[in-house]
């Protein structure tokens, strides 16, 4: 009788679950194509590191303004995850025992690994129970922003009752308790079962439960409790299973594939659109996202790590990555039927893509301002424990706004037009490109085509007055070290990085192609640049245009020069700065993992002390200029650079060092607005070196 009842229960639950999963999978497969089956080795490594070792949960993260318990919460998750993983075997045991008495999964049989396994399980159940209590405390008492949202952008979490979170926690707790009742009860009423006897001493906690049950009500109560435990345990598992795909707990099923399929291409490479054959030029409808982007939506755990690191959220803009993701997910679920009914997926290259739902970019769902607020700093992606990607989605939607609707902040028109005509976002005549080099006797590629290194200056270094000084410093170092280099001078062209990040892929591609042609005209093999944005695009994106160069950032290069003794530094430079803090550029650091080179250089300068900000290295906060934000207006009370400068000043520095011309502009501007000019200045690492050449 009970077997039949249990079987019916199981079949019903699995049928409903199967249907939901079938629909979710079908929706996923309607997504636009994306090749994520390469680099399998790296993918497996990611799974081991991020999924199983839960690296991003337990790592130490700076979270100014929030309590330290965030890392504790990470450990909590670690134990719940491993608790469930370990428990899975017992779940199989308990389900199978509905049909086969005393079932054991090989090799977890009593004579083999059964004992040690049960010991582990016994402890894990108790630990998980503790974790559940802690989680309830966080939800009910502590109310951290990570759970209730980062205002003002994140408002959707604040008003909710979060009954789902409580329910799931109760489920988890009940699974642990009912498991204990089942095991403990058996020890009393099945005391003469040889298996039970063998298990008894491996499970001290269950044993105690058994002793208590026996003491209170004897074998009768023990049997009742054990049976009840078994039913409750299995019933909750079945309900839980069905809740997964309907809630944020879907991640329990999707996190593994999500980590496995995470981006392994260079982080700084955006997809190259096929503009000639496309029928749409950006993402505007829910079914135009790729299947991996849909998987991201499924997988978001709503943990809030992304928003807690987002400079746009922190500076009060309308963007909070978690909210963006959840809004997309809700919309996708709402339109599941329509997505499924569409004949073909949202692949932009398909003949006539069937677009589903309304245009989601705009007031309907994702406001323009949300998309424009992003600096593409990648802090969110770095923080996300399951490697969800944001920048690609945001740029895809920007591509729609810019290319299909020509709708963007008015000030960008000038930027685009300047790039189109003068070939640089500053709108300064190209003949001024080598003005910085006047009188410095810098070799030109045209005169020395065999130069070993092309020093690609970039627009900021060539046209912006403050950054020209950095460019001169780089040239001075290269000359002092006897490096065989040359510049393109007037021939140099912008690589279009800004246009691509803003979403003007068309403009980017034409600029990148022209720029690459000029470089290829000289048979260049090695490129040196001091601009992280140029560095990233030349290194990671030019291969999309047939440009394969050995690209090195000036900090890496100069570090080598110092190590090789080709550059010697003294302690009596003109700069009085003694105590220096270094601000990481997103495109040098997070995107390309150049964290140590600038720091090593600074450390090698005699008499200089390097201090670190709380948010540094991979958690460094953006200066606010990336993603084309450099060219967009920013409300005075919402400036990212002001916040960053405040953080820098906390370290009481004499100067703030940067290794990026955009960071230079932003930090310099932030310091000046605090009237600190002459007291705390922004300096480029190259300037410090040039200043102290022995």
């Amino acid at each position, binding site marked *: 009788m009970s077997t039949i009842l249990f079987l019916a229960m199981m079949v019903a639950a699995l049928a409903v679950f199967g249907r939901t999963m079938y629909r979710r999978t079908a929706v996923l497969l309607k997504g636009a194509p994306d090749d994520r089956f390469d680099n399998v080795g790296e993918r497996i490594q990611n799974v081991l590191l991020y999924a199983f070792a839960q690296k991003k949960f337990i790592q130490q993260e700076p979270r100014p303004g929030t309590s330290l318990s965030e890392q504790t919460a990470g450990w909590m998750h670690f134990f719940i995850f491993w608790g469930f993983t370990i428990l899975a075997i017992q779940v199989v045991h308990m389900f199978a025992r509905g049909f086969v008495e005393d079932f054991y999964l090989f090799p977890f049989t009593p004579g083999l690994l059964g004992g040690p396994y049960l010991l582990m399980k016994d402890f894990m159940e108790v630990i998980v129970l503790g974790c559940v209590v802690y989680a309830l405390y966080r939800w009910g008492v502590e109310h951290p922003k990570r759970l209730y949202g980062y205002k003002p952008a994140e408002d959707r979490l604040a008003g909710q009752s979060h009954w789902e979170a409580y329910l799931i926690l109760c489920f988890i707790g009940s699974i642990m308790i009912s498991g204990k009742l089942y095991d403990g009860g058996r020890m009393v009423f099945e005391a003469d079962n040889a298996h039970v006897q063998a298990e008894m001493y491996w499970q001290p906690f269950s044993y105690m439960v058994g002793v208590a049950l026996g003491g209170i009500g004897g074998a009768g109560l023990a049997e009742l409790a054990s049976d009840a435990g078994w039913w409750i345990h299995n019933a909750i598992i079945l309900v839980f299973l069905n809740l997964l795909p309907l809630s944020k707990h879907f991640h329990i099923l999707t996190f593994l594939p999500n980590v496995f399929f995470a981006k392994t291409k260079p982080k700084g490479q955006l997809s190259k659109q096929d*503009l000639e054959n496309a029928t749409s030029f950006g993402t505007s409808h829910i079914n135009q996202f790729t299947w991996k982007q849909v998987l991201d939506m499924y997988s978001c755990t709503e943990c809030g790590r992304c928003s807690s690191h987002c400079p746009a959220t922190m500076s009060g803009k309308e963007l909070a990555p978690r909210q963006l993701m959840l809004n997309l997910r809700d919309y996708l679920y709402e339109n599941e039927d329509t997505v499924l009914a569409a004949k073909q997926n949202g692949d932009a290259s398909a003949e006539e893509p069937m677009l589903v739902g309304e245009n989601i970019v705009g007031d309907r769902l994702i406001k323009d301002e949300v998309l424009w607020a992003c600096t593409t700093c990648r802090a969110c992606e770095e923080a996300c424990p399951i490697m969800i990607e944001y920048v690609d989605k945001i740029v895809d939607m920007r591509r729609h706004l810019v290319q299909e609707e020509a709708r963007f902040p008015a000030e960008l028109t000038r930027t685009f037009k300047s790039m189109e005509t*003068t070939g640089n976002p500053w709108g300064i*005549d190209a003949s001024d490109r080598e003005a910085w080099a006047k009188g410095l006797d810098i070799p030109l590629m045209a005169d020395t085509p065999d130069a070993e290194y092309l020093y690609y200056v970039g627009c900021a270094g060539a046209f912006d007055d403050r950054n020209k000084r950095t460019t001169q410093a780089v040239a001075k170092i290269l000359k002092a070290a006897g490096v065989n280099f040359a510049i393109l001078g007037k021939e140099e062209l912008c690589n279009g990085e800004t246009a691509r990040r803003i979403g003007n892929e068309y403009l980017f591609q034409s600029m990148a192609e022209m720029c690459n042609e000029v470089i290829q005209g000289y048979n260049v093999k090695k490129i040196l640049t001091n601009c992280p944005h140029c560095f990233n695009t030349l290194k990671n994106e030019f291969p999309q245009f047939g440009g394969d160069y050995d690209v090195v950032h000036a900090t890496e290069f100069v570090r080598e020069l110092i190590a090789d003794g080709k550059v010697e530094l003294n302690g009596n430079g003109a700069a009085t700065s003694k105590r220096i803090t270094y601000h990481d550029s997103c495109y040098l650091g997070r995107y390309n993992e150049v964290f140590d080179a600038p720091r090593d250089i600074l450390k090698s300068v005699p008499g200089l002390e390097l201090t670190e900000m709380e948010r540094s290295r991979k958690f460094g906060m953006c200066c606010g200029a990336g993603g084309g934000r450099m060219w967009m207006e920013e409300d005075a009370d919402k400036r990212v650079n002001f916040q960053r400068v405040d953080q820098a000043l906390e370290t009481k520095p004499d100067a703030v060092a940067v290794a990026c011309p955009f960071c230079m502009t932003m930090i310099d501007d932030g310091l000046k607005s605090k009237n600190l000019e002459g007291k705390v200045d922004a300096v480029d690492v190259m300037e410090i070196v040039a200043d102290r050449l022995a």
Partner: protein
Amino acid sequence: MKILVTVKRVPDYNAIIKVKGDGSGIVTENLKYVVNPFDEIAVEEALRIKATVSGAEVVLVSVGSKSAAEQLRTGLAMGADRAVLVTSDDELDSLGVAKVLHKVATDEGAGRVLMGKLAIEDDANQTGQMLAALLDWPQATFASKVESLESDEEKKGVPGIAISGESAQVVREVDGGLETIETALPAVITVDLRLNVPRYASLPGIMKARKKELKELAAGDLGIDLAPKVKVTKLSPPPERQAGRKVESVEELVKALHDEAKAI
């Protein structure tokens, strides 16, 4: 209703213009060209008017070298319907251009002509007025609008020139203020800088523009006397700016302004 809009090819306004040594012209090597910004505003205005009138057609016209096709394509990408390019190897004066435009406007049967009040490279500000005279149409020059370029009307793309029936209301920028006039149509309207913010062409717009009609005519075949009455005899660059100098004190500054600059 056909709206004819002029599109002149001019050097990029960001470019540093260098005058040839002999003063016969400017150095055109490596020079980038754009749509005359005033004409771009005229195109924008025509497109906005078109959006409010059913059956309206926006026809672009350019007089100049073959390369002006590039600028016409830019206008087509913004949304104009088709374009006419009248090529001429010889340099035309304002009257010559006005005569060509007269011919095109008549042949096309245009009902309104919108054009920039001047072209940024020669600053002549004559062609519109001459064309109105040749067509014997009324003219409204320096069209502007009351609303600011940051206003909601502007963001919504409301035309600044109000057309009702066979007349148009034009707000003109005059010294120290605005003047609103009403003119009968057809008319020649020349536009000023503050009339609108021209749109940025969308990618589908650019793609479509490649397939739009661009008719090429040779000025010489039009049977008009184009011999210039006005000739540019010499160009000379402005005097080079002297480098600035840092002074040590206020006293020194006052002294320098008084004794050297004779400013105070």
